[in-house]
């Protein structure tokens, strides 16, 4: 499989992950947890902090973050490469989206990690 084919395969897989992990996230917020409680930061079972402390929910948020970062930035790469062609442009776009995706993942992971430690 070519490099581009591997990237696009991952693009489709992360698309599916977004649907599944996104559904879990929305279901916990809107269906399982009492809405009032989900907005609180205290020690009630479904408060924001307790959601992060639950390793299954925190894990699904991390999966959602990784999938969104890859899928979103790869989508942006595809659009940018279609709008303009050239070796320098391709290289610049590849570097820029990789750096941006890594920055988003680091920042998001930091938030999930810190919140789960509170």
């Amino acid at each position: 499989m070519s490099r581009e084919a591997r990237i696009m395969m991952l693009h489709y897989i992360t698309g599916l992950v977004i649907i599944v992990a996104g559904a879990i996230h929305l279901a916990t917020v809107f269906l399982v947890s009492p809405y009032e409680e989900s907005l609180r930061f205290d020690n009630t079972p479904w408060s924001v902090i307790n959601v992060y402390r639950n390793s299954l929910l925190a894990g699904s948020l991390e999966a959602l973050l990784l999938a969104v970062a890859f899928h979103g930035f790869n989508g942006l790469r595809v659009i940018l490469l279609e709008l303009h062609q050239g070796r320098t442009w391709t290289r610049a776009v590849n570097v820029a989206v990789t750096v941006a995706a890594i920055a988003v993942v680091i920042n998001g992971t930091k938030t999930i990690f810190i919140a789960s430690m509170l």
Partner: protein
Amino acid sequence: MSGKLQEVRLRVYRYDPSNGGRPRYDIFSVPVKKDTTVLSALLYVKEKLDPTLSIRFSCRMATCGSCGMMINGLPRLACYTLVSQLKSKTITVQPLNNFPVVKDLVADFTDFFGKHRAMKPYLLRIDTYEQEKSNISYRQTDEELLKYIQFAYCIRCGLCYAACPVVATDKRFPGPQALSQLYRYYIDSRDEGGGERLEVVSDSHGVLRCHFAGSCSQVCPKGVDPALAIQLLRRELLFGRRTG
């Protein structure tokens, strides 16, 4: 021509890049009957009203693929489009989208044919000596033939290329015609190109860039379904097995 004569307005795109002029539209009144084609109407203009009008055509029967143009905004064959079917008193004709203009309605097919050639549109065999021996023939079952025959009906008219939104923005994208021809040979049981064929379209401007707009298959005058070929090719590239 048969039936009652009626007048239509032909709004014709005029442009000659060689004299640095700006594109303009000329309007001609043309008498038409029920069975007048857009090509016949344009030839009337050329014969009777303005001999400087440039058009490309040959067979006049939807076989050579040379008379493609934008007719009322859609890529169509002028010889295969009846004025009466357009149901419009004014008909606008322009050169095909996504092609440079040679003059007036004549589009430059250099890139288009270059992309077609890059797909190696012929049987690839490991043993070329055997292939060139005239007493050899490759047998094929009906099922094997059915896998590619619809794609072999392509007349290289370029209508699908003109309709493709990816070709409009990505000049390196091979386009629906070239990709469907690649699939046509890839899936042919007599062909041994295999992975070498897929490699040509596996980069970041290749077959994976298709948006699946499907406009290529909508406009094809020969019933070829390039969008299907592209999706099957994409499946081959991602899952790496011969299917169909």
